């Protein structure tokens, strides 16, 4: 092996632990979304397939959109639209809720990025 070979190998070996730390430390994007209605689990939906899910809540229908491994509220019969403003959720542990309609969603995955969301 030449000197340059050894330098490249050492650099490569140094890079690997960094990759593990970067991509495995925080857990990662979630695989599924748990939908709760009235505090009870209603359905667990995979984030792998793009689709829309209509959830019947206390006030009416909340509509969720699943796309590219993320989920968001796109319609909800609440006055503040807080849930819609939460935007896309993709990391494990991300959570949002439509309180008036009693619908909440949480992304679940291997190790959640967040253990809790302060909102």
């Amino acid at each position: 092996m030449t000197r340059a070979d050894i330098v490249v190998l050492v650099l490569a070996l140094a890079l690997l632990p960094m990759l593990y730390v970067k991509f495995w430390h925080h857990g990662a994007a979630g695989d599924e979304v748990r939908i709760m209605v009235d505090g009870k689990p209603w359905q667990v939906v995979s984030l792998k397939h793009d689709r829309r899910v209509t959830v019947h809540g206390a006030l009416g229908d909340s509509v969720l959109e699943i796309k590219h491994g993320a989920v968001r509220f796109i319609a909800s019969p609440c006055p503040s639209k807080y849930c819609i403003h939460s935007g896309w959720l993709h990391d494990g542990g991300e959570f949002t809720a439509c309180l008036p309609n009693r619908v909440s969603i949480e992304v679940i995955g291997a190790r959640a990025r967040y253990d809790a969301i302060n909102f």
Partner: protein
Amino acid sequence: MSSVRTSLTTALVATVLTVALSACGPRPDPVHKEQILAMGTMVNITLWGVDNDVAQKAFTAANQDFNYMQTAYHPWKPGPMGRTNQLLALDAWFSANPSVLPLIKRAKALYHASDGLFNPAIGRLIGLWGFHSDTLPKGPPPSKAAIERLVAQHPTMDDIQIKGIRVRSTNPAVQLDTGGFAKGYAVDRVIDHLRRLGVSNAIVDAGGDLRAIGSHGGEPWHIGIRDPSAPGILAEVDVKGDESVFTSGVYERFYMYKGKRYHHIIDPRTGYPARGTTSATVIGSDGATSDAAATALLIAGPKLWHRVAESMGIKYAMLVASDGTVYMNPAMAKRMHFEHKPPKVVLSAPL
């Protein structure tokens, strides 16, 4: 041929290293989660490192506690706090229900520490605005005259006198609305209960109000703090041991009327929703103090928050002003990992 040996050794080391690293992959995590609807919010409880039986017991206990406290501390529905409010209006000594007495005592102390900005005695004002109810008001906002009348009566926690279990109010305008505080107090009670059941790693998260004990398998708990004005997470903060993270935000409860926004955090000095700040986050030891402090700091705003945090004994505080500027003390800045860089950060003197 020694260089062949060298490279073979290197390859072997690389293989061993890779296999060793691959073994650190995600493992099933002994996490239990439960959601409870109580106190006007969704309470998420996370437990780590207990078996199923303990987890179920803990969830049942938490559920009962929250349901009990939701009734006990509701300001006007029939129950201990509702009854206390009726009696406070009578200007005479009465025996307070033992479930509300400690809450009132804590509220008095925190009222003083916050320079009167955390003032749960303004229940009438909250009622006038309509934010006491479970459903959001639609407007119109109350008249200027009605607001000024109630502010002039100046109800404070000082008007409430306590002797043993006997309580009276010297100001008939005093009505307790512990909205900005009862959740924190309830979170504390539930954490105590979980500890008695043998849970040492848990998060009790009542919306913006959470207390975390222990750790997530030795790693700190990762808490995401919502961005008050944009979708997504503003920052992450890691907590370990026993800490509370409380956020008060004007986006939690509000209504629009003729294009104007009216939110639920009423400034006791003016009688109107607090202005200038969109959210206040506090990391503290117990939930009750942190809850009251988050409310008080939001009302205090960018000019006064530091003084109020100091007198309430808060070590970590962050304010997000209406223009997006983030105010915090240096110790808080060290703990906040921002997801997006805030437009402007103003560091205060240390707390």
